């Protein structure tokens, strides 16, 4: 092998190694940015200004397979849809905390809550809510029961709830729980418990 060829080969080898290192570094940076973006896009809890209201939450526990009824003072808007949305965003905020008994994916949010005749509430969730939700019959069922019962506890006129994902109907939440149907508040309450 001639000297220039050897030099060229070594140069190319160095370039290849450099590009490999750059790709590795880039990959790490993208992952870090995605993580930071997910943290930034976590649920923003309802506005904290104004008079507070005693809000009832049905908080899911994966380990126990139950809903736990708790109450907390939260500042809520006056408008009905915004109020329901704020309640659910507070609930999602609890689930997004590190110590949550029922963790849900980063970026989970409630885009909107609107009402239809027949005491029906439509909850439009973010795509991240379903895409990053843990998969399992119990864990998905608990999330839905928690949403439905929390809404009903704070607005007893809400009898039925339908959950959309990013404005559209979806077959299942994360492969199990049926999202094509309407959920009645009275029929979905797995082992609800009062806070001790």
């Amino acid at each position, binding site marked *: 092998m*001639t000297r*220039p*060829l050897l*030099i*060229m*080969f070594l140069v*190319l080898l160095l370039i290849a190694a450099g590009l490999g290192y750059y790709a590795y570094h880039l990959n790490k940076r993208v992952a870090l940015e995605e993580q930071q973006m997910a943290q930034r896009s976590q649920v923003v809890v309802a506005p904290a200004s104004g008079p507070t209201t005693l809000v009832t939450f049905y908080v899911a526990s*994966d*380990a126990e*397979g139950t809903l736990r009824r708790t109450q907390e003072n939260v500042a809520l808007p006056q408008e009905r849809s915004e109020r329901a949305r704020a309640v659910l965003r507070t609930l999602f905020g609890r689930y997004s905390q590190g110590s949550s008994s029922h963790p849900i994916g980063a970026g989970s949010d409630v885009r909107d809550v609107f009402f239809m005749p027949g005491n029906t509430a439509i909850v439009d969730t973010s795509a991240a809510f379903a895409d990053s939700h*843990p*998969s*399992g*019959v*119990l*864990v998905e*069922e608990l999330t*839905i029961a928690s949403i439905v019962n929390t809404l009903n506890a704070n607005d007893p006129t809400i009898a039925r709830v339908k959950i959309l994902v990013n404005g559209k109907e979806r*077959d*299942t939440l994360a*492969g*199990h*729980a*049926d999202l094509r*149907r309407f*959920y*009645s508040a009275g*029929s*979905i309450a*797995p*082992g609800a418990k009062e806070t001790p």
Partner: protein
Amino acid sequence: MSVPSPRTLVIAACILIATGRGAIQWLFHSAVFAQSPEGNQLSVYSAQSSFSVPLISANGQPYVGLLELLEPLGTVEARPDGKKYKLRFTAAGAREVELQFHDGKDKGKVKNDNFKLAANFVLQNGRGYVPLAGVSELLTRALSTQTRFNPAARRLFIGDVGQHFTLELRPGSPSKLFISFNSPVNPTIATEPGHIRFTFRREPVLAVVDHASYTDPLITGASFSEHDGIGELDITGNAALMANFADGGKTIIVTAAPAPPPPVVAQQAPAPVPPTSAEHPPTPTPAPAEPRFFVLIDPAHGGNEVGAAISPTLPEKDVVLALARRVQRELANRGINAGLLRNSDIAISLDQRAVSANAARPALYIALHAANTGRGVHVFTSLMDPENYSSHDFLPWDQAQAAFLEPSAAIAGSVSAELEARKLPNSTMAAALRPMNNIAAPAIAIEIAAPGDDLSQIASNAYQEQVAQSIAAGIAAVRGKMTEVRP
């Protein structure tokens, strides 16, 4: 440094192109390797169960997954370790056997003896694959039993499981062909003018004679062939043919299909009824089939739809298939006939699952799931709103389960009691889980999670065995109270 000569640049460019081409070829090979062409399956028949295993293409020939092949035949523990693949297998009532192979090498060990594969062993995503050629020898060595493999038909018979049949033509008006088996069969039947075909997918049906010809005005011949993992019996005739089952499914009677009814003519006098010939007494109406108690087990997910990730290398689809096979065995030990809706790694849509389940007319449908959240075993019945029940003659698809909620709850309670008796953490609740609402039979779903903090316990033999025994015992306990279904 001097500028490189054009010759040097050309050589360097060639090196880069060759490297790039190699990388593209490698990527292409990886993509092709992962594919499993639809219908490319190996049918395996054994005394324990009959099942099909998907084949993959590698090194230019079909390969079969070692774990998928051995799991239905006993207890398997696979341990991929770098390029090594160790597997411990224990068949029912037999001693543990160790198999050891190395990725990219054709030499391995079975029971500590050297074993040469027909081509190199392949380890892909933690799963070990052996070439289909020579798989019979491998199983003969591992199971210490004779096997028979038909490579062209992709049918593998383990032990003495071949189910032969006899043909007997009884001339008459019309003639009847009696096809007799030594145990009940349940083939898929297809008809077309002059043909009736029986496709045996689950039964290890084999023919003594491949072709038979008859000089009969109705039935002219019968031929048996094996291909694509199935056995197919084709009966030919000079008119449209139909089949009836008798003797509890052990006999199929092929005869002429009834002629279509004549067009109704208004005010036409009824035709006189001819006297019954003494030589041909009317055929007695076959006795109604015996009621049966059949449990259909549906291991959730499969194929590309992996379900929950229990761990990075353990998807839900694999956990539930292993559990389903255990439940089937435990039910068989209690004298209960059970089948699996999916006995290999294939994707089935939710609606397809419901259609297949309803067609099988089971006395009980059980969907099996696994999760990496929660603890213990959760038993579910269908969540339905009572006010939405339909009382119409036609049952809406989403309310097919409504009429069976009570027996479903009874079975769920019985299984829960058995789990409790074995001190396994458990709960019972209603869930909106597809396709339970579409099942027109008592139906429950069972989701297993790890019993404690160690997620790997979910796939342990001891834990799965306890869960399977609880499920089978729970079903056996309520069997007497449930309505048996006519086939």
